[in-house]
């Protein structure tokens, strides 16, 4: 409950924010990425507004010993920019540009009953699993199955 409750509250707020912001509409996201056409700056407003409370929380955290409902902060400390990170970002960006959906809006958008969202999410989960399979085979680990 200590983990699930904040997860549910935050996920719900996050999903509501995505739906309210217009980011669950792929046409709008593609409009933002289309700098050569009729550029739609909406996503920039969303990101700018989101960064304010998010950054404030990081400033607050510096004065805190531990989180309110957990033992310790788990904030990534790695600062190395490696090829894997850039390759992953680029592959994600191509997929994002093809459809106009990234993971948050795709999952939140399942609420709207558009079948295309379900097809996209199914493929996205398959892609996540394939990456895991690829990493397991590359590192000679036993192949991991979901569940």
């Amino acid at each position: 409950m200590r983990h699930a409750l904040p997860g549910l509250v935050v996920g719900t707020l996050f999903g509501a924010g995505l739906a309210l912001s217009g980011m669950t509409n792929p046409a709008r996201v593609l409009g933002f990425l289309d700098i050569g056409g009729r550029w739609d700056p909406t996503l920039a407003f969303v990101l700018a507004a989101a960064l304010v409370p998010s950054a404030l929380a990081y400033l607050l955290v510096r004065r805190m010993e531990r989180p309110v409902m957990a033992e310790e902060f788990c904030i990534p400390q790695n600062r190395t920019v490696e090829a894997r990170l850039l390759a992953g970002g680029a592959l994600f960006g191509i997929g994002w540009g093809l459809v106009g959906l990234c993971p948050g809006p795709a999952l939140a958008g399942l609420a709207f009953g558009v079948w295309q969202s379900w097809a996209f999410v199914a493929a996205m989960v398959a892609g996540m699993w394939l990456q895991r399979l690829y990493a397991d085979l590359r590192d000679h680990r036993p192949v991991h199955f979901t569940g």
Partner: protein
Amino acid sequence: MLTSATILSALLGGLLIGSAAGLLLLLSGRIAGVSGMAAAALRIADKGPPWSQAAAFTIGLPIGAAVVLAIVGRPEVTITSSVPLLVAGGLLVGFGTRLGNGCTSGHGVCGLARLSPRSLAATAAFMGAGIATVFVARHILGAG
């Protein structure tokens, strides 16, 4: 079209998204990255948040959208992609976000807010690739 109502809901939605991310950090000490949460919820990831938190967060996303649907009304959703494009896009987004350890939320909203050089580089990579993809699709191949 960009109207003042669109900008207002974009700003309000953005504030909600950022507040949600900030709240998870303060309460649980974790990054609200959707791809990481979804992977942990599906037990695809080894590291990351406790399963119960990841699952609750992931289920919360469509619940939150449903709340907006009930209170504000149905937001416009236009998906014109064909099935092969939806599948290719989904596979690339799933594979890429796991390879690059994050997506628009984890690297974009959370990473940029704490000035992480990795997140800055990842955000530049996916924004750049997204812009290039749309440019090729719309202005070179003439689709959409």
